[in-house]
């Protein structure tokens, strides 16, 4: 394999690994731009992975699986909203609680229903999102550079991957070109301005959380029935937090969010590739070093190497009318 083939294979894998991050980070984008910290992304992802795997297993229909994943993720979002918007609770505590609930519940229910140590049953092929070969992929495969790039990186992904990347311009358009987006961005900065303009702060924030739940449902579904064929214990493995880091790194903007997710996906793919390979001059490096790279990068980035990340000003603060 020459270096170009290696690069193509890493890039393809980077795309696939960045999809769940992208859905989740965009979900966080809507929630946090509306002023609701969403540390519960991880839990939503996990719960939706479990729900979609179960439903896909029982029905053999991937779309019903997706629907279940989105449904459960929205339910989690609404619980978060009830705690932090209606009852003005602490958003971090509520989010962490949801993460625990998701981690525990998926194992208990999984064991009760499938008796496989927390795994769900193997989802049949028709219950999964399989890869789509884009038109002309085979025809251009032999064209130098562009050919393999099209055939192996852009083509051959499942439908959720294309939806993920389509969601980037859609999110941008919603945030910056619609009334809902304008109000959503405003409520995350100064809910008082929204309230005095005669708009309900609570309802606006609930809608933002519903959008977040919707997007996060895709990410869990992707993990369970697109990337794999079953739900596995703690399958999200901290991706919700990585997505949150990507969101901050991207300063809460849609296009940078995509780039940040691709970067994290690339590091992940790189780590997988380096497994068992020797590095020039250093010899064989323990794979854990590479696996740690995304997390190290997260720490470094969050420690301030990205310049001042200015979060939405009203983030994390429950809104109360002042006298």
């Amino acid at each position, binding site marked *: 394999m020459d270096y170009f083939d290696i690069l193509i294979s890493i890039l393809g894998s980077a795309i696939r690994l960045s999809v769940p991050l992208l859905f989740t980070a965009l979900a966080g984008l809507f929630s946090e731009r509306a002023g609701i910290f969403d540390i519960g992304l991880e839990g939503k992802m996990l719960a939706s992975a479990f729900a979609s795997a179960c439903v896909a297993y029982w029905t053999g229909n991937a779309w019903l699986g997706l629907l279940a994943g989105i449904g459960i993720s929205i339910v989690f979002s609404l619980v978060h909203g009830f705690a932090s918007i209606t009852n003005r609770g602490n958003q971090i505590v509520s989010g962490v609680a949801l993460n625990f609930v998701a981690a525990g519940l998926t194992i208990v229910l999984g064991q009760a229903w499938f008796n496989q140590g927390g795994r769900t049953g193997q989802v049949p092929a028709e219950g999964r999102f399989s890869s789509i070969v884009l038109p002309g992929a085979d025809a251009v495969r032999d064209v130098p550079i562009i050919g393999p790039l099209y055939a192996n990186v852009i083509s051959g992904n499942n439908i959720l991957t294309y939806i993920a990347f389509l969601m980037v311009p859609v999110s941008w358009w919603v945030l910056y*070109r*619609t*009334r*809902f*987006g*304008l*109000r959503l*961005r*405003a409520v995350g*900065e*100064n809910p*008082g*301005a*929204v*309230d*005095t*303009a*005669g*708009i309900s702060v609570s309802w606006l924030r609930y809608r933002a959380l519903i959008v977040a739940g919707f997007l996060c449902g895709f990410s869990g579904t992707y993990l369970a029935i697109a990337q794999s064929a079953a739900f596995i214990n703690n399958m999200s493995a901290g991706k919700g937090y990585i997505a949150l880091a990507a969101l901050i790194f991207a300063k809460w903007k849609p296009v940078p969010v995509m780039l940040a997710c691709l970067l994290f996906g690339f590091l992940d793919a790189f780590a997988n590739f380096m497994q068992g390979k020797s590095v020039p001059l250093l010899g064989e490096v323990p794979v854990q070093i590479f696996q740690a790279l995304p997390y190290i990068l997260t720490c470094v980035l969050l420690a301030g190497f990205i310049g001042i990340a*200015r979060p939405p*000003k009203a983030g994390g603060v429950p809104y109360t*009318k002042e*006298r």
Partner: protein
Amino acid sequence: MSLDSSNEPAIELVGIDKRFGAVHANKNINLTVAKGSIHGIIGENGAGKSTLMSILYGFYHADQGEIRISGKPITIRDSQAAIAAGIGMVHQHFMLVENFTVLENVMLGAEGGQLLRKGVASARRELKRLEDDYGLEVDPDAVIEELPVGSQQRVEILKALYRGAEILILDEPTGVLTPAEADHLFKVLRVLRDQGKTIILITHKLREIMAITDTVSVMRRGEMVATRKTAETTVEELAELMVGRRVLLRVEKGEAKPGKVLLSVRNLTVKDSRGVTMVDDVSLEVRAGEIVGIAGVAGNGQSELLEAIAGIRKPASGEIFLDGKPVAGVGPAELRSLGLAHIPEDRHHMGLVLKFEEYENSILGYHRDQRYGRGALLDLDAIRKDAEEKIAKYDIRPPNPRLRTANFSGGNQQKIVVAREIERDPNVLIIGQPTRGVDIGAIEFIHKRIIEMRDAGKAVLLVSVELDEIRSLSDRILVMFAGKVVGEKSGEAGEQTLGLMMAGIAA
């Protein structure tokens, strides 16, 4: 103008009553505001002005009473209903999204459709029209946080007009403005009135009432106590109506008898956290038995000078002597033990912990004192007794040392700080903005205490952005501009002279 509506008052409030638990914020309020007039509502902090206006704007619901707009009774359920009834409000703390443009802020809540594109074009046209009609100039594409405060306020006014407001309520609009910006605002308000808009101006500044209003209503402790034609009343009468007794607007003080130098500053240079020189080679002396005032527009180094003398900010160079002892770089705790007391400029930021109960704040900074406890333990009985004495002596209301400090009014909070610092009987007292956000009654009280300190032979250094305050209290006035003391005048110096020095034009 149609005859039937022109005679109806713009707003009638009939028997408005509102309670918050035990607090009776508005008692049976009746108010009539004539169409096309500027109507001032004046009263001390906590008199119920803001509550009344919040009821009018749909933030609160009155327990009883009726609101009539142009003669028609209406119910105002929320802000949306108020906007629909043609009422616009300019809040004291601006309700603007700081990282949005002017245009986005104006459109928020009145976007004209699900998509922004169409609304943007019409909002732009409408803004241009409002600008031409009323002289409200703002660049629609400027980002709010990059605009000066005066322009931000103009955006608030534009927001209301854009929504078709015929009645404009302004809550303490000049609190954040420079004198020039306030003048500009008044000009705009007059234009608005002349074009038929009705304006309600809420303030506690008598001067503004006299300068701009046609009619003035006075509130005191939840009641509407009087309404007067502005032309037929005087500042003295209004002050008396506000406070409920005669008030001395001018401080009475005798001749100063300066003694030895107690505080001396030599060639002091102070830099801020970014390394910018804020105080540049300043020297000054304050003698026993005199008040030295430092005048200047906010941000010319007065704050940093105070902080350096109080030991909060380390000077870059120069010397400070307290009764002859060099103290530059000495911390605030030690300075206090050496007889220096400090009333900080911002009581919320530096003077008080708002979540603490009153008695806890009454010893803050002196908590290591033997009187208040031994070793690591506090003697709570002694502290509360001490707090009660101060409350009585300074007439702090409500007289409850167990009340959270945040629940006191601004004037009473300031009295807590003043009592704490003055009752230690310091030799040198440094004061920043002694009466910012404080009502007239408390201003008079605090000014008297400061004069008493002087007469007791203490050295007082006073910093204030209120030129009136500097002029009425100080025996000598230093003017600071761009970090330097640009001149010294006697306490009798004229406003004009000092104003020019503050602007850096004359020395």
